[in-house]
């Protein structure tokens, strides 16, 4: 069986035929690259053929070095390519995250799918059109200026009978046209040709709503997920975790699985796994294998009860004054503290944010076939190209010999467990010289995935006698957002790597808010605290959707609300007074107006039910979102229900409004989930959130009564990301609404019913 073709559709077969003989999958020391060029593996970005190909039937293949997190990013890319090339949308097929076909565009990351990822494809499609129109000009004997293109047919404006199709010009053949590469890999990778992309005013497909094609496949059992990949001669694998985090392996008793047909154990360092011929026997073997672990004290000092004490008391590992990826900056809080000391009023508040899990609906799965010094990997990682580099390093084989095929998988929302099983499968496949499918359990997917860091956001503000802000202090102190890296580019960032001797890196990051509000004597900085357990911890921390932004904005956007009330202003007016950016001002106004601002009265109570509304703002990823929530809170039960949510959303040039709407609806539910329910439970020895009763997420009872989305389209502005800005707002918007409804501030998320009930009692 040709196993690499398990998930080939017709267009991919076309492409495989096209690339025969091409020298992809080798180390490319690009001749045009400058001395600082990164090491490049795979198809050269400097070739137009890497990005765009026209098949013999005139269909277009666009190779995208990212993947889709379930938001139809491939459709939006296809819209852009179709518009630039002047072909019908249905003719464009986008391949995603396949190291054989695409350069490393960084994978799914920071809502960059369109705002960065689509840019080289837009440029390449424009260049392809230029080359094709010039070729048509030669063929038809008509000046380029006298030609137009419609659905892949170039024709003379003066005589439409004079025409030639893209298929006739180049179908199945190579462009052999160079592109200028910016010497970057990852999110920032870009290429330019001689052609300039169109002005957005000329777009006909971009900006219109189109429905995703993959949904029909997904709801009819026709889509291939990683979990479905079963090459011939496959071994099924399960891993075995210690009962106490950090325990060392002392030995395994193979007799304990002797009764299970074909079951074998595998040990390397402190990593333990089992393999078997059938999946169920692998499960049975994992449950039956007797493993002796060292007796270690629980590493999670104080457990969940004491997590905020731990953070408060910890000596910081690092500190910085700027937002993620921003470099290093010194700060000085003294002027702010001095201003506060002479202020008429001083407000102080701490906001606490729990550890949260990615808790993917399907735990990590990876299928790997290692043959000698070559490896083929099926995975739903968000970063297939970085996974290639990491697994090559892990196995000690050249990266060019490792091919990663991204598959549909369970939604992953950041540096989740999705990278873990492929590494484990790779190690086992190398050891057993057979293809291996590693499937994590539910317990592993929740208890052992990388976590969003718990944090405390400390806020202070001063007001003078006229209620003007005299100083504003923001300090985030929390677990490390980069305890393991956001890309799986090295084995030190995954459990099995650490368990087999790859020491984790030492890099630290948290985050601070951007300067949306202008205050006098404004200072902000972050501090990270040491991990509970240095290596291979189930509580290792990493990026979860809108990394460390939900935490920082919970503090900032709740405190804005608090200070506004003390200053005697409506929180919306207070925001508008201090905001600088007209796009931020607009989303705040629009979302507030949908809730009846400025005429709406304060919250009301009838019996046990109080009603109120609140708002929060976030801008980032080139986009702007204001979320307003009207909530009901039940004093007897502590239950909060979002009765109505209004989002005003500006993501610059909007490519597919249907996609943006779906992305926002998803953020509403996941935002409510993270605000009201999600917290990782743990004691000193282990993580106790192991399933959906011990790690609760939102369900149908949390669906808002009314969903009201205002999409602001700005074709004159660059494309922004739509996957993260809105979700950031939910904890503060809901907590502010609770205050409006009840007059009670809740300064910890999640606002679980029990905690709310106590706060209101």
């Amino acid at each position, binding site marked *: 069986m040709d196993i690499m073709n398990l998930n080939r559709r017709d267009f991919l077969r076309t492409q495989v035929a096209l690339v025969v003989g091409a020298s992809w999958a080798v180390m490319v020391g690009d001749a045009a690259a400058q001395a600082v060029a990164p090491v490049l593996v795979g198809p050269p970005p400097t070739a137009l053929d890497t990005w765009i190909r026209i098949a013999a039937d005139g269909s277009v293949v666009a190779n995208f070095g990212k993947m889709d*997190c*379930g*938001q139809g990013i491939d459709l939006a890319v296809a819209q852009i390519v179709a518009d630039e090339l002047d072909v019908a949308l249905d003719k464009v097929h986008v391949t995603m995250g396949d190291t054989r076909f695409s350069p490393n565009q960084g994978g799914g990351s920071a809502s960059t799918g369109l705002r960065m990822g689509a840019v080289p494809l837009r440029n390449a499609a424009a260049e392809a059109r230029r080359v094709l129109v010039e070729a048509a000009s030669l063929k038809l004997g008509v000046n380029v200026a006298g030609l137009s293109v419609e659905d892949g047919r170039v024709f003379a404006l003066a005589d439409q009978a004079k025409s030639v199709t893209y298929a006739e010009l180049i179908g199945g053949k190579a462009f052999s046209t160079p592109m200028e590469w910016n010497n970057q890999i990852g999110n920032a990778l870009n290429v330019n040709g001689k052609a300039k992309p169109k002005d957005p005013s000329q777009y006909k497909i971009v900006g219109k709503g189109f*429905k*995703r094609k*993959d*949904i*029909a496949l*997904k*709801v*009819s*059992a*026709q*889509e*291939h*997920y990683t*979990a*479905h990949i*079963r090459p011939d001669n496959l071994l*099924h694998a399960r891993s075995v975790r210690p009962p106490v985090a950090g325990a060392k392996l002392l030995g395994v008793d193979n007799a304990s699985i002797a009764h299970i*047909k074909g079951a074998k154990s595998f040990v390397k360092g402190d990593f333990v796994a089992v393999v078997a011929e*059938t*999946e*169920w*026997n692998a*499960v*049975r073997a994992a449950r039956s294998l007797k493993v002796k672990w060292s007796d270690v004290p629980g590493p999670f000092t104080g457990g969940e009860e004491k997590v905020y004490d731990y953070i408060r008391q910890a000596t910081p590992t690092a500190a910085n004054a700027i937002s993620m990826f921003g470099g290093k900056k010194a700060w000085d809080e003294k002027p702010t503290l001095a201003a506060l000391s002479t202020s008429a009023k001083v407000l102080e508040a701490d906001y606490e944010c729990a550890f949260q899990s990615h*808790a*993917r*609906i*399907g*735990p990590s799965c990876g299928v790997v076939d290692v043959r000698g010094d070559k490896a083929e990997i099926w995975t739903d990682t968000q970063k297939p190209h970085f996974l290639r580099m990491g697994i090559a390093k892990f196995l000690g084989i050249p990266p060019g010999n490792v091919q990663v095929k991204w598959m*549909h*998988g*369970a*939604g992953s929302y950041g540096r989740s467990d999705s990278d873990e099983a492929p590494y484990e499968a790779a190690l086992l496949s190398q050891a057993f010289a057979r293809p291996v499918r590693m*499937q994590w*359990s*539910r317990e592993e997917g929740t208890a052992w995935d990388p976590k969003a860091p718990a944090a405390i956001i400390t806020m202070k503000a001063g007001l003078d006698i006229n209620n003007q802000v005299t100083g504003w202090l923001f300090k985030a102190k929390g677990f490390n957002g980069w305890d393991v890296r956001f890309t799986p580019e090295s084995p030190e960032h995954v459990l099995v790597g650490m368990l087999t001797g790859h020491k984790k890196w030492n890099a630290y990051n948290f985050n601070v808010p951007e300067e949306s509000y202008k205050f006098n004597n404004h200072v902000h900085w972050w501090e990270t605290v040491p991990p509970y357990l240095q290596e291979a911890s189930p509580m290792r921390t990493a990026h979860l959707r809108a990394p460390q932004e939900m935490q920082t904005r919970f503090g900032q956007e709740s405190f804005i609300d608090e200070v506004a009330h003390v200053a005697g202003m409506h929180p919306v007016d207070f925001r508008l007074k201090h905001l600088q950016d007209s796009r931020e001002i607009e989303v705040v106004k629009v979302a507030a107006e949908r809730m009846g601002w400025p005429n709406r009265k304060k919250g009301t109570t009838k019996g046990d039910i109080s009603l109120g509304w609140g708002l929060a703002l976030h801008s980032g990823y080139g986009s702007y979102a204001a979320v307003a929530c009207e909530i009901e809170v039940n004093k007897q039960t502590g239950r909060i229900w979002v009765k109505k949510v209004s989002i005003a959303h500006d993501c610059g040039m909007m490519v597919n409004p249907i996609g943006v709407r*779906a992305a926002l*609806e*998803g953020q*509403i*539910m*996941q*935002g*409510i*989930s993270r605000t009201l329910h999600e917290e990782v439970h743990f004691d000193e020895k282990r993580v106790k959130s192991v*399933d*959906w*009763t011990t790690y609760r*997420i*939102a*369900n*149908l*009872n*949390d*669906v*808002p009564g009314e*969903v009201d989305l205002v999409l602001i389209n700005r074709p004159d502005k660059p494309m922004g990301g739509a996957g993260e800005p809105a979700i950031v707002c939910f904890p503060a918007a809901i907590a502010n609404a609770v205050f409006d409804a009840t007059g009670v501030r809740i300064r910890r998320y999640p606002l679980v019913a029990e905690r709310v009930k106590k706060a209101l009692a």
Partner: protein
Amino acid sequence: MPTYRLNVDGAVRTIEAEKDEPLLYALTDALKFKGPKFGCGVGQCGTCTVLVNDQPIRSCILSASSVGNKPIRTLDGLMQNGQLHPVQAAFVEEQAAQCGYCANGWVMHAVSILEKNPKASDAQIQQGFANVQCRCGTQIAILRAVKKARDNMATAKT
């Protein structure tokens, strides 16, 4: 390993399975079905749902050996003559999937809810999905889709 005959989507399939092997593994590992998926293994998420005797059952906690000749219906067999089932069609219409990994559970439960009560109220629909999870947060679109399926099926009958 013992051999069992399963009546799946109208066809009798013979499988080898351990006595305690969950139906999920028999369907996905031995028979290569793609609808039911592993999600939790403890019956809490619905991702592995199939209909047995037209009832939604969590195939991750039901042994294949216990099913006997009761008819099993799966997402893989829901299309008829190449046409999507009205529930599937409504999910497409409302774009009610993100990653789609959990879609199996929602679609199979929806089919069961609407077969039992084609006139199910909005509240009855909502209550019909006990312990079905979606991590991407597609519940808003899913509810719209199931209501649309109900309305479309009612229109088709009249």
